[in-house]
């Protein structure tokens, strides 16, 4: 393809089909077919040649945004727990929905959520099924007020349909729901969402909501799709059987199920926390832009996120270790016993630190839960506003708090080393 053709498209030679189409769209608006027939044909020919070349000889690298193309934000990559970067599929303005699996044990990439299989339905959709689907799609029961028997009946009929018509009905229902969430002026408000809550609770078990692929199939505009998932996650109680749900201890005998949405909402508002979380998930080196103290001990960093109960447990563990090591140093016990006490002190310290590090992301999720609940449950579901609320809910720890932490935290951190030294000393002297 000649330089002139690329010049016509106003584009540096590329094999990225999406970029070619974007360039064509941009140039077409200056070369309208009714004003400039020849120019239009030339532009069209240039585009078709460029696209043909791109098809024949696809780019070897995974689609990298070109220099002239606006960078594609890639939040999904940051979340992917897999170590090896996989080639990103070509995504044109599709909503990127992140998947987050807060279970530390699981380092394999999470499987895509499988659609709920309703076993009563036949596999093959016949004409009658489609006719039925049509009828149902056109007779959606009211969703916003008093959704009851009508909707239950509608859902019962929908779930008997084969997969494909059911998928489309699901999309139709989602679109209707999304419309019902909006005020006449287009705002999404908690009042409207609350009005559809009964309907959503009825429909969720039938379709296995919240499912991100369902929202994608409903082909809502990209921004709205992410919002829709978020709203569904907020309204629907997390499913304890869902592997993406974490049960968080919330008092004696109480386990609070937390959906991944809660954690995500929190992490979205805390880039640093996100970075550390990532590092923990991947067992990768912790990024540099983390507070030095957090590098020293993950549990300190948990304290920074106001897990005061955890902090107390951690400190107790450390003081215990300190006490034991002092016992060994001061010569209260003699001979082999001193060595045992010293080792015990070391074990308690390592255990406390290790357990905190091990559970750090659960601690994080717990913090996430509280922040998300504070931020999300009131008022407007606009993403921007939500982020602002999250930021407000997590005031950074002030200098005095840090000093306090340093005072209480640094000593126990240092003492185990003292214990270690005295143990070595004692062993040396004993010989």
């Amino acid at each position: 393809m000649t330089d002139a053709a690329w010049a016509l498209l106003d584009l540096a030679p590329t094999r990225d089909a999406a970029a070619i189409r974007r360039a064509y769209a941009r140039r077409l608006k200056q070369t309208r077919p009714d004003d400039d027939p020849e120019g239009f044909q030339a532009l069209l020919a240039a585009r078709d040649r460029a696209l043909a070349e791109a098809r024949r000889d696809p780019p070897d690298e995974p689609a990298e945004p070109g220099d002239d193309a606006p960078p594609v934000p890639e939040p999904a990559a940051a979340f992917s727990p897999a170590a090896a970067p996989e080639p990103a599929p070509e995504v044109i303005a599709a909503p990127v929905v992140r998947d987050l699996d807060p279970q530390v044990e699981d380092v394999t990439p999470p499987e895509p959520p499988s659609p709920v299989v309703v076993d009563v339905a036949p596999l093959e959709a016949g004409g009658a099924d489609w006719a039925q689907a049509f009828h149902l799609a056109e007779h959606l029961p009211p969703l916003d007020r008093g959704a009851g028997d009508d909707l239950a009946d509608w859902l019962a009929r929908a779930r008997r349909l084969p997969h494909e018509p059911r998928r489309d009905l699901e999309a139709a229902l989602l679109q209707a729901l999304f419309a019902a969430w909006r005020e006449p002026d287009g705002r999404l408000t908690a009042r409207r969402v609350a009005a559809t809550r009964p309907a959503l609770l009825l429909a969720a078990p039938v379709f296995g909501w919240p499912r991100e692929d369902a929202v994608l199939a409903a082909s809502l505009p990209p921004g709205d799709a992410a919002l829709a998932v978020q709203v569904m996650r907020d309204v629907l109680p997390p499913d304890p059987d869902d592997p993406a749900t974490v049960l968080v201890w919330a008092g004696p005998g109480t386990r609070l199920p937390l959906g991944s949405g809660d954690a995500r909402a929190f992490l979205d508002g805390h880039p640093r926390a996100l970075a550390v979380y990532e590092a923990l998930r991947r067992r990768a080196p912790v990024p540099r832009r983390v507070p030095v103290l957090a590098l020293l001990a993950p549990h300190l960093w948990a304290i920074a996120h106001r897990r005061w109960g955890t902090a107390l447990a951690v400190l107790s563990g450390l003081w215990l270790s300190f006490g034991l090591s002092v016992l060994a140093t001061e010569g209260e016990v003699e001979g082999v016993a001193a060595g045992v006490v010293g080792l015990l002190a070391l074990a308690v310290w390592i255990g406390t630190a290790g357990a905190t590090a091990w559970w750090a992301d659960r601690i994080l999720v717990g913090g996430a839960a509280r922040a998300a609940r504070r931020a999300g449950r009131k008022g407007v579901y606009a993403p921007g506003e939500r982020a602002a609320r999250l930021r407000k809910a997590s005031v950074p720890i002030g200098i005095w708090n840090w000093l306090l932490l340093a005072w209480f935290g640094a000593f126990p951190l240092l003492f185990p080393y003292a214990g270690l030294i005295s143990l070595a000393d004692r062993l040396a002297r004993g010989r």
Partner: protein
Amino acid sequence: MAIIGIDLGTTNSAAAVWTPEGPRLIPNAVGEPLTPSVVGLDSDGSVLVGRAARERLATHPERTVASFKRWMGSGHVARLGRGQSFRPEELSALVLKSLKADAEAHLGTALAEAVISVPAYFNDIQRKATLDAARLAGLPVERLVNEPTAAALAYGVESRREGAVLVFDLGGGTFDVSLLELYEGVMEVRATAGDVALGGDDFTALLAGLIAADQGIALDGALPPGERARVLRVAEAVKRGLTGAPETRYEILLCDRVRQGAVARARFEEAAAPLLHRLRAPLERALTDSGKRLADLDGVVLVGGATRMPVIRSLVARLFGRLPLVHVDPDTVVAQGAAVQAGLKARHAALDEVVMTDVCPFTLGIAVTENARTAAATQVMLPIIERNAAVPVSRAHAVTTIHDDQTRIAVQVFQGESLRPDDNVALGEIPVTVPKAPAGAETAEVRFTYDINGALEVEVAVLSTGLRHRQVFRNGANLDEAELDARFAALAAIKLAPRDQAENRALLARAEALYAELRGEMRQHVAERVARFERAITEASGADAAAVRAAFAADLDRLDDHRFRF
């Protein structure tokens, strides 16, 4: 000065205007967005258009004509009453005139221009006939837009969604499929296919055949036109009834006897199988031509009144494996799209970021002879513009002489997909003279230029002499300039029924149709109501008149309901 978009349909026409908020439909004199494409002559010689004329189809079949869009571009002449005959262009012009009057009354300004939609498969001659109709109506029209493209425009501007969309447009008389790609404000028509002789009317005719068979009569020339119109009317009502119910009962007065019957949806669908089968070929062609697979489609949009039929919807769902998106208003979406095109043409600011590119839906070419020296020399089609090329497009091809000392090349222009020119539509012929020379020595370049309105210009240049012949086709079926002027004058002299009377006339015509259909007591009932209405309307004025009309219409609705039970 406004630019409006007009959908000149087979059964109904509509007009819409572009506003910054989007296309807005223009109501007619009766206050409805749809004006039936029916023209009738009243007893006093004035011309009735729209609802009033449609109601008279059953009572005055010899003075009323419908579905004349199907004759556009042919020499067919409709006779109305005694002595008055109209060409399809003129009948269309009368509908356009009525739409123009409605638009001017509604907008309060004169019209600067109009954009008219035509079926994508309309050929050059039919497009010219449509332009002639506009000219006869005194409506300046520079731009024609293909109906499925218009529907897609309305859909694209309205939804602002991106992706590949298939528009399935089954109107009253034509079937069109368009495959579009929407991205970054560009609406690119990738392929168009269709069937010019397949539409909702065919389904009505099918039902009429079923009803006639049930009642033991033959639906042929022997049946008086009035009875025939009545059967079609009942068939239409049954068709609409079957959309909502699995079985529809009807009652019809035929051969002086009231007959009753019922049609079940299953039976109708079984009988419609051959028609449904014909829907497949254009769908397949559009998909193949666009190079898309079924899985690449992001949506199927149903347009046109006939797509309300459940049988069509379930067919589309089965073929595409998904529920089609049904446009909220399948009857008027084409008019709205034409208004969007009008807005594009006027360069409205709201449409600044929108560009539409269309395609030429059929192959255009010339007849050539290959292997002239062998015995089996036959003429074949040489395609110059292949179907679904983006328009405006200009392509050239060189042809040479095949005989020694040949002095003349006849460039015959055809439209169609067949290899044999005879099977294609002949558009015209350009004879050019060439100097005497050995076979193959003289070359002529044939250039086809197809513009955004679907007008074809052919230019033949003889290379050795530099002679150029340029021709825009108007063949025998089209009117020539002098004729056009004469007809324009004649049409201007015809008086359309006054606008303010339109509503009364429509109601009266409906009452007359009802009267013809009913018998006995009910009939007297109608006659009484008519007399009362006529008395009341002469005395009433303004708001009172509206009340009188509403009451009369409600009476008629009640009487009508009595006849059809769904």
